[in-house]
């Protein structure tokens, strides 16, 4: 009898656990009006990448976030809330960015996120702010010249990025390894865990800049419009972002930032991403 009770209590505990966990997550900070809150606090909290050179990188020397996306987020914040507003940054990974947005830790994602139909089911996107394309990075002198050469080989990607799903369409017979972030993915490529690293060309260009033994190969095989991720139901915030985006493009801030970050990157033609 005693034993039965023990099993029963175990069963009840586990059931309770499951119920609580599935129950939570529906009401949270994210359901409040983000724009109103931000106007009061004069800050917007952006989710940015910490490991992507040129776009969003935490500089180990001073611990500050640096990159095109970081600068763009700062410019957008000023346009949206006024000159005295500040942009706060929270570093995210491909995997954590959507959960962090959903639970209200960040107001918006500006972290190399491509607008995709699947993602649109979960979150909203502002208009695209950058046009990237997926490509591959290999060791100089590698036999891999284009993505189709990767059939039967091993490709390294980052968990949570749509590039790992995309590459399966172009090289269906390749094995795909998903690592937690780009820094680790690149180290894995260097130690020979895979034959190529795949993701968006801008990200790869950043890697090639700091790792001269590696190069981008083949043409970009997809187009990846990056969008700012916003929670569903935040219509005011989305409108404000789109308006600010238009303004920074109109007054030339956008192109200035493109020149600043991509002006002299080998293997990347910055003129293609300039906007009028």
């Amino acid at each position, binding site marked *: 009898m005693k034993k039965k009770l023990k099993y029963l209590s175990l069963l009840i505990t586990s059931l309770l656990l499951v119920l609580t966990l599935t129950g939570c*997550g529906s009401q949270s900070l994210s359901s409040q009006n983000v724009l109103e809150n931000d106007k009061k606090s004069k800050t917007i909290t952006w989710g940015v990448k910490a490991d992507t050179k040129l776009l969003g990188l935490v500089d180990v020397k001073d611990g500050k976030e640096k990159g095109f996306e970081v600068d763009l987020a700062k410019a957008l914040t000023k346009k949206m809330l006024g000159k005295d507003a500040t942009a706060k940054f929270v570093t995210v990974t491909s995997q954590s960015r959507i*959960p962090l947005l959903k639970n209200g830790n960040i107001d918006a994602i500006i972290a190399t996120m491509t607008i995709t139909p699947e993602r649109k089911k979960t979150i909203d996107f502002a208009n695209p702010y950058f046009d990237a394309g997926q490509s591959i990075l290999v060791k100089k002198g590698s036999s891999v010249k284009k993505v189709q050469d990767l059939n039967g080989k091993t490709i390294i990607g980052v968990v*949570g990025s749509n590039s790992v799903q995309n590459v399966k369409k172009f090289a269906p017979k390749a094995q795909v*390894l998903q690592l937690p972030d780009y820094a*680790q993915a690149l*180290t894995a490529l260097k*130690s020979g*865990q895979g034959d190529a690293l795949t993701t968006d060309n801008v990200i790869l260009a950043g890697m090639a800049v700091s790792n001269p033994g590696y190069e981008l190969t083949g043409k970009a095989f997809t187009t990846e419009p990056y969008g700012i991720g916003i929670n569903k139901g935040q219509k005011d915030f989305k409108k404000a972002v789109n308006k600010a985006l238009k303004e920074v493009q109109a007054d030339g801030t956008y192109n200035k930032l493109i020149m600043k970050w991509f002006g002299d990157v080998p293997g990347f033609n910055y003129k293609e991403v300039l906007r009028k």
Partner: protein
Amino acid sequence: MIKLLTDNWSAFISGFGWTLLSSVLALFFSLIIGSLFAILEVMPSKVVRVIGNVYVEIFRNIPLLVITMFFYLVIPLYVVKINGFTAGTIGLTIYTSAFIAETVRAGINSVDSGQMEAARAQGMTFWQAMKNVVLPQAFKLVIPPLGNQFVNLVKNSSVLAFVAGFDLMYQGNAIASQTFDTVNTYVVVGLFYLVITLPISYYMQHLERKLA
């Protein structure tokens, strides 16, 4: 949650399989290696004792992730190419073996020293006395803490996710990022881990009752 489970059934099951395989391999080898180092730590020779001690203290005090990363990223650069699953399992084995060594050593030390002396007086060698007299008593004493180590080992196997070892956690991460159903995915992953760890817990309790 049921839909998530059925949609991704094959991914979950393959993850479960790799986790189970890694856990079983690591459990088997860490028990052997751990016991060996436990014996080294109580050997009469001081040099051998120091060797055992150094091994235990090094691997017990380095994070598991660091050991695993070392095998995944550094060893392939200079020595031999090993994949994520192997690197993870080796890391898990070494890390757990250090803890098992400490646990078993505590067991050996708590066996009355008279037992060893009596066995030696009967003409047994050190190894014979260890194998036939001391170790059987020591293992009986350390069953509860060993059970803890085994359960910890299964949970720690989630380190494989960081080196693309295709385990439960890796599949969970991939599924969560594809379906965006983070909550349910990790609940399912947690339940799958329970499927492995709960039987271990109960078996160890059973063993404890039977032998004590």
